[in-house]
């Protein structure tokens, strides 16, 4: 089912938690609400769920306006960060609760549906246990089964993986993604972890201070971030930024920063010619370490952090320190002089004042 949020706004007293959010989610799509804590992503989810009433704006499921409906009338299933399993009920009773409350179904039918939902997330061996007797991963699966058992139109997940340890998180990431596609349900999940958002979602809505910053596919967010905040938030280690002066030469834009001159192929100056302040961004994986004389810039190795598959090297260039991804074979002493080559086609240019993308 398609979900549309229009100028959705939530105020808590004088605090503006969500500011005129517009978002459209296609039927069967898996969308991540991503952002640092306090950005309004959970508030948005709870408005979609019907726990919070919006201060203004509209929420539409399919063709139906729902912002004034109680949660029970919205046809949603939800998985909470804490899983929120009912501690006094067994796993079977937990999964059965939504069916029991809805009524109108025979007991045999219900227990069949409970079993099916439990099999879907592979907890059918645990039906008689209590939540306290389950591991974190099992609790998560039960919460998923409970959210899906009444076949809702929309699945909501609030930080579904943040209470799991690293290995399990990786496993459940794939599991939830597979489940979402298998059931074909429209799903929205909230996370503060960009890796989760990028790996799981079809599209990512990145928020800050209640305002939507970008809404795009993971590939696009990575390749063409809409503004400096997006560029900084997406990608590990984070993008390098350099304050630069812009000039023109032979019809193309030239950025000068820290004694480095970079020609930006295909970029146009936002206004008429003449020098202009801007911020140049480049991801660590798009910088290469070369011999001191060969690169676009030269600097000294500040620190080397081996990460197994690769190494993160920080290089002091003038007053700035740039992070570079180097292959595992690379070795250098701290203080050694090296050259840096910028991948020209991977440069990002942002307005220094507004942070908007220029090129």
């Amino acid at each position, binding site marked *: 089912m398609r979900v549309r949020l229009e100028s959705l706004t939530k105020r808590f007293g004088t605090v503006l938690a969500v500011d005129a959010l517009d978002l459209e989610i296609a039927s069967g799509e898996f969308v991540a609400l991503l952002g640092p804590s306090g950005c309004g992503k959970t508030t948005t989810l709870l408005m979609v769920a*019907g726990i919070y009433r919006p201060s203004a704006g509209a929420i539409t499921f399919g063709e139906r306006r729902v912002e004034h409906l109680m949660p029970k009338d919205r046809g*949603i299933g939800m998985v909470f960060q*804490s899983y*929120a399993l009912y501690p*006094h009920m067994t796993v079977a009773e937990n999964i059965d*609760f939504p069916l029991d*409350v809805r009524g109108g179904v025979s007991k045999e039918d219900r227990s069949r549906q409970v079993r099916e939902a439990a099999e879907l997330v592979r907890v059918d061996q645990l039906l008689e246990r*209590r939540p306290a007797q389950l591991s974190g991963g099992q609790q998560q699966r039960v919460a998923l089964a409970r959210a899906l058992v009444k076949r809702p139109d929309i699945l*909501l997940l609030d930080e579904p993986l943040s209470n799991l340890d690293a290995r399990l998180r990786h496993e459940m990431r794939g599991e939830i993604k597979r489940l979402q596609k298998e059931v074909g349900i429209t799903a929205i999940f909230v996370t503060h972890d960009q890796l989760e958002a990028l790996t799981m979602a079809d599209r990512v809505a990145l928020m800050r201070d209640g305002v939507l910053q970008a809404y795009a596919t993971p590939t696009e967010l990575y390749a063409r971030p809409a503004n400096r905040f997006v560029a900084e938030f997406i990608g590990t280690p984070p993008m390098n930024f350099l304050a630069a002066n812009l000039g023109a030469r032979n019809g193309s834009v030239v950025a000068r920063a820290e004694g480095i001159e970079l020609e930006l192929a295909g970029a146009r100056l936002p206004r008429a010619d003449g020098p202009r302040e801007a911020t140049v961004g480049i991801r660590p994986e798009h910088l290469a370490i070369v011999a001191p004389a060969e690169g676009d810039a030269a600097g000294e190795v500040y620190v080397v952090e081996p990460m197994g598959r690769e190494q993160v090297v920080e290089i002091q260039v003038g007053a700035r320190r740039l992070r570079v991804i180097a292959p595992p074979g690379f070795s250098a002493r701290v203080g050694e002089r090296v050259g840096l080559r910028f991948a020209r086609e991977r440069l990002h240019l942002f307005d220094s004042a507004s942070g908007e993308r220029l090129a």
Partner: protein
Amino acid sequence: MAALARPLPRAELRWTGAIPYAVLLVFTLPILLLYGWLLYGSFFPRIEGLRPVGAFTLENWRFLWAPETVEALRFKAPIIPLTINTFVFALSTSLVVLFVSSMAGYALSRIRFPGRRTFLAGVLLLHSFPSVTLLIATFLVLRQLRLYDQLLGVILVKTAFELPFGVWIMKGFFDTVPWDLEMAALVDGAGRLRTWWRVVMPLVKPGLLALGLLSFVSGWNEFLLPFVFMPSGTQQTLSVVLRAILNEGRFVDYGLLTAVGLYYVAPILLLFFFAQDRLMKIYAGGVKG
């Protein structure tokens, strides 16, 4: 995600486990011995010092089967109806306290309404008033309502005095139930009332049990209110009768007093014996898991 408690090695368990019991035994032994002595003494005509005198007899307990032969009780209601009265009084108080406290406590814990803090502070203030200081005012109210000298009136008054404590205790228990559980129930399709009944109330069951027991005990022990507000005696409770025995004539029949006293305290002792672990939860409280 409660970690399973690691079982102690056997030897360690045997020695360290015994220490608390030893300490507790030292402190409880005098009380146990005194109760035992009381029970033992009630089967003899007289007690001199700590030594029972005379032959074994059931004389002191005859109030159970032949109350008309007991001087002090001659003009009182028979003991069995009195016991039932006391039971009704304690049980109704406890049930009404449970009902009102669980609803008021939930509202105070969950709903941010104007005057909430003032109300909580006011309730606490009320709790610190001894009921004696309100006796005259309560009398006037009861008479106005035509509930003076009636069991129902005393039940209402007792309930009112018990409520501040009950409301605070229940609010505390509701505070420990995570919001997430209620949100989950709402999303799962339950309304507010069903969420309260099916999800929240089962989780505060330890609190309900403990509060129910405490107010039952408090009702069972109550002397002042039945004594003052039911003077005519037809609906009196056991505590009032116990006092009547103390007041009768110039010589107090201590043998009788002991027997009636033991009879009076027995239900409470039994209750505590079977419900002690539940009662302890009022201090532990909360949601496990």
